[in-house]
């Protein structure tokens, strides 16, 4: 059966690429710290040696529209073109092309439907920044096949939060029952408190730091009971009008398992919204240790692998340049990233 190499939950911030490839006066003051944190986070995926990525995200009114809106959808296609004109315009995101993994898509669709999730599917899906942001931050060489899983966190009526957690549990079980020797990483991105198109948008920090503090604690300990006791479709309007993206974190807590302590947790208080990064290693080895102090030891072991990571980085740069037509411009930022790498060991055992 397949191995779950890593489970990763993250915020997705479409300005990361632009902020961290900017130089001179254009480079924002927070870019160095942000880049260092992302590069440390990236290493948590690299060291898990995944073969295929299940990517949980949500379409932002790009291909999916209100005349035909699925709640949960899985892509099944050999390729996924990625990013849209308005993402290029607003965020400077490049056009990309990702390979698909149709066999794992078919397995998740069949098994998910049989488990009681009436999943929509798409055989021609152009994915957007909810999937390409974590590719850029976690696997910028974009060299692994993906299975996109889209959720509706965007257009009411939405599924209940508990349903996201249940789908996460189902995805975990289905990947574990996939008859394959592949190492699968399950990666999902969502939001903490977030306001878009409302009076609290683009403040000095996220619109509700108290919600963020609680949410980071729930995620780091995968405390679904606590999260489900406090979070509802109605309550999520309070921390910010785009906070329903937190339900994708709840899906990932379902994947991680109830009360599974994250092996890696970090966060960054940015203007406008808080960033948060979590990794679990179900097989125990790549993460090293069982959380807390053990996790820190595992990290020290990871530091030895750092040089190896740097080599992977160089290889990644080739993948970057050759990966897709749209990527060429990224190569410069990438080189700058390599320098930042040496000093990048910014990490906390817990947020």
């Amino acid at each position: 059966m397949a191995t779950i190499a890593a489970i990763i939950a993250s915020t997705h911030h479409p300005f990361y690429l632009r902020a961290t490839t900017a130089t001179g006066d254009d480079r924002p003051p927070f870019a160095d710290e942000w880049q260092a944190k992302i590069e440390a986070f990236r290493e948590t995926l690299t060291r898990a040696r995944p073969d295929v990525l299940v990517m949980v995200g949500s379409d932002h009114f790009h291909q999916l529209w209100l005349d035909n809106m699925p709640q949960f959808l899985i892509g099944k296609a050999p390729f996924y073109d990625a990013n849209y004109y308005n993402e290029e315009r607003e965020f400077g995101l490049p056009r990309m092309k990702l390979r698909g993994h149709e066999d794992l898509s078919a397995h998740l669709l069949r098994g998910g439907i049989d488990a009681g999730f009436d999943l929509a599917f798409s055989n021609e899906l152009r994915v957007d920044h909810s999937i390409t942001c974590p590719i850029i931050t976690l696997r910028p060489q974009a060299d692994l096949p993906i299975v996109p899983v889209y959720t509706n966190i965007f257009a009411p009526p939405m599924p209940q939060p508990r349903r996201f957690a249940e789908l996460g549990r189902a995805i975990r079980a289905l990947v574990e029952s996939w008859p394959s020797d592949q190492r699968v990483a399950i990666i999902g991105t969502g939001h903490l408190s977030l306001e878009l198109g409302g009076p609290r948008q683009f403040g000095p920090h996220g619109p509700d730091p108290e919600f963020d503090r609680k949410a980071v604690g729930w995620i780091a300990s995968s405390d679904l009971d606590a999260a489900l006791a406090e979070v509802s479709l109605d309550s999520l309007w309070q921390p910010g009008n785009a906070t329903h993206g937190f339900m994708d974190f709840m899906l990932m807590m379902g994947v991680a398992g109830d009360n599974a302590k994250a092996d890696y947790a970090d966060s960054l208080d940015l203007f406008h919204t808080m960033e948060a990064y979590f990794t679990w290693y179900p097989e125990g080895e790549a993460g090293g240790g069982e959380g807390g102090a053990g996790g820190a030891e595992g990290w020290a072991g990871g530091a030895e692998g750092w040089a190896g990571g740097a080599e992977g980085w160089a290889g990644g740069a080739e993948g970057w340049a050759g990966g897709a037509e749209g990527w060429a411009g990224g190569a410069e930022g990438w080189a700058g990233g390599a320098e930042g790498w040496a000093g990048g060991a910014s990490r906390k055992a817990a947020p």
Partner: protein
Amino acid sequence: MSKYLVNKFLYTIDRDPDLVERYRQDPAGTVAWWEAERANVILNCPGAERSTWLSFTDAERDALSGHDYVALFELGAHNFLLLTLFIALFERDYDEPLAFQREFAARLSHWSVPYPDIAT
């Protein structure tokens, strides 16, 4: 109330660079053209298989024709579509980064939760 149609306008303008410029330059004319020619096009159907019943209310038409994002917010337009398109329309007119986004927020500062319902 035709929130869906307001959202459809924002969505179809936002995804087309020529229409973004046209709407910036001539909002009332673009809204009139769009309502007459495009409002009833089902996006995944051939042109002949179109809807027959969609139109704006006067308040919606006026808000769109006036680039009035405060009124559109209050009519329940989807916050993400509204922000994304209006950044494309007006961010360029401001010198400081995020200045337009912060003005947008300030002009809505009389609102607290619950905001107008965006459900369609």
